[in-house]
């Protein structure tokens, strides 16, 4: 029984593997006491625990045996699900990462957004609230139904929020603004993918990979199919669990 825990800004993912198979998984909102939330997810006895995500070093001091970065964890998790993967796009709560893999599934290059939350899950959450949608799913559904035609020019979360609100005041339909906000995230993400020179197959992980509108727009923009794992938010935790299992195989 090997456990991986991914302590992100928005959620904490937990995966247990045994013999290369997932035997248990769970997910919780990070909340205001990430370490407590993380500890509550640990429900059994594990041979080894590997932590990843922003809270990985805190977890290492508290209960985990080792840490791996989100980049390595997502690479391991994604390759486990899609062995042919050559590029991974991970959009989480506060970070966007693009990871390039070689034919053996090893990381050969990566890029990360700078310190601001432009184009991440947080950006979409703030925009959903600004437009008055009760949840992120309603926001995505509205964007899918919206028309193209307007463009959001600000990528800064706070400025883009002002821009969205001023568009509302100009009488632009809410769905169209929602559409434009999704398109701006896709624009930024596609730019990052092109800058690094991505190769297909492309696997999309992290919470934003649950967003159907982003997936559709991204596939259109890139002209390639985007592979989505069954639980995109748990790929980092899965990678960490696999790292824990590998550790014991080595030593």
């Amino acid at each position, binding site marked *: 029984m090997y456990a991986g825990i991914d302590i992100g800004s928005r959620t904490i993912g937990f995966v247990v593997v045994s013999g290369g198979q997932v035997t248990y998984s769970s997910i919780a909102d990070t909340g205001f006491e990430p370490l407590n939330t993380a500890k509550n997810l640990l429900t059994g006895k594990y041979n080894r625990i590997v932590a990843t995500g*922003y809270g990985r070093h805190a977890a290492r001091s508290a209960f985990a045996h080792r*840490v*791996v*970065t*989100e*980049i*390595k964890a997502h690479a391991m998790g994604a390759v486990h699900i899609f062995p042919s993967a050559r590029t991974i796009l991970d959009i989480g709560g506060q*970070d966007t990462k693009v990871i390039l893999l070689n034919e053996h599934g*090893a*990381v*050969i*290059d*990566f890029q*990360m957004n*700078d*310190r601001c939350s432009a184009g991440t899950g947080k950006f979409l959450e703030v925009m959903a609230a600004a437009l008055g949608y009760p949840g992120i799913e309603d926001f995505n559904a509205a964007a899918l139904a919206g028309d193209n035609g307007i463009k959001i020019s600000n990528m800064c979360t706070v400025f883009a929020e002002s821009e969205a609100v001023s568009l509302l005041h100009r009488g632009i339909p809410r769905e169209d603004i929602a559409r434009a906000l999704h398109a701006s995230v896709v624009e930024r993400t596609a730019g990052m993918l092109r800058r690094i020179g991505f190769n297909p197959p492309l696997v999309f992980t992290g919470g934003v990979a649950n967003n159907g509108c982003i997936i559709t727009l991204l596939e259109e923009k890139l002209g390639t199919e985007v592979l989505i794992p069954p639980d995109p938010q748990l790929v980092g935790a899965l990678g960490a669990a696999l790292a824990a299992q590998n550790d014991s195989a080595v030593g």
Partner: protein
Amino acid sequence: MNNYQEMWRTLGLNMEAHDQLLQVLPPTYHDVYLTQANRPQGMEYFDFVVNEIHGLRIQELQEHKKAGGKVIGAFCVFVPEEIVRAAGGICIGLCSGVEIGTAETEKVLPRNICPLIKSFMGFKLGKVCPYFESCDIVVGETTCDGKKKAFEILNDYIPVHVMETPHMKKNRDRRLWLEEVRDFARVVEKATGHTITADNLAKAVQEVNNKRRALQRLAELRKQDPAPISGKDSLLIEQIAMYDDVARFTAKVNALCDELEEKIKAGQGVFPRKTPRVIVTGTPMAIPNWKVPHIIESSGAVIVAEELCTGLRYFENEVAEDGQTKDGLLENLAARYLGINCAVFTPNTGRMDRLLQLVEDYHADGVIHCALSFCDPYAVEANRVEKTLKQHNIPLLKIETGYDQEDSGQLKTRVEAFIEMLG
């Protein structure tokens, strides 16, 4: 620590702001430096120098001034220290590596400018740097547009002499630079009241060359695996090189090297053998900017060389000592300084060749390119570095960051992922 309050007051420091600055340093220094494992004994001297950064060294400068000597401050490795020494002056590096006096500085400088420029202006306007306050003149250079223009503003607060550093290395640029070096010699003669002669210049060249040789000796030892000294300690020594007494510093570095040679013989190091080896390149890291090196070395890699101004660019080539006349020596000086691979030059292929050579000589596994935010020459040249290293399959991580700590978590993730990739 001695009581230097009176000295600081006499220098006109803003005592309250200065106290705050001194309170920030010791805990940072403790966390970054004193917690390292297996540190060489010889680092004690450098710890002492940092501990006395605003104390003993400033007292020495004041004593020098009382005896009629002059203190000249510089911001760049292009300013020939030898000329100042030949005229009996003391040359000290002034660049600053910490955010300070931001509100004051933003009255005279734009908000978005390189943190190094912002910092030196902040130190001067905030009156918190006893080195600045000890200077009779400061010497600027035209190595970037931001500095070039900022020196005009700085001149409102302290006399500034600006040297025009060329941006190419053609024959006419060499002639221009030689003229600038000769001009500088005249400026220094006037400021100090001492004539520069072939004899005193030859002596100064030799003394500064000896300092460079000591630093080269230290750099050479870092080719060993396990690394006998951390990159953080080496950077600290290179930072101190710019303001410490030349002869004393040279002797201490050589003593440290003696110790390191013994350790190498015994197979001892500060990191385990086979630790991933990294070269750091980019914008200078002025004291106390240790952010990125600390992140790198606390993430499981060792820095084996700094292709930086606070590093190899400062000491890697020597001034030819064969000049018989004052003019001959000034020509040798000009030639040495124009050999620096600063990103202000176009083209700057020398830096690319040097990096490739360093990766080979130091058995480096990867290179981390670190540019200060808004530092155009290095941020743009990162593209040339990337292209060159890619052609040779050398892994590269590019970072752009300032003096704040907000991005430490993000930087740590990127550096750790890079090291995982190397391993």
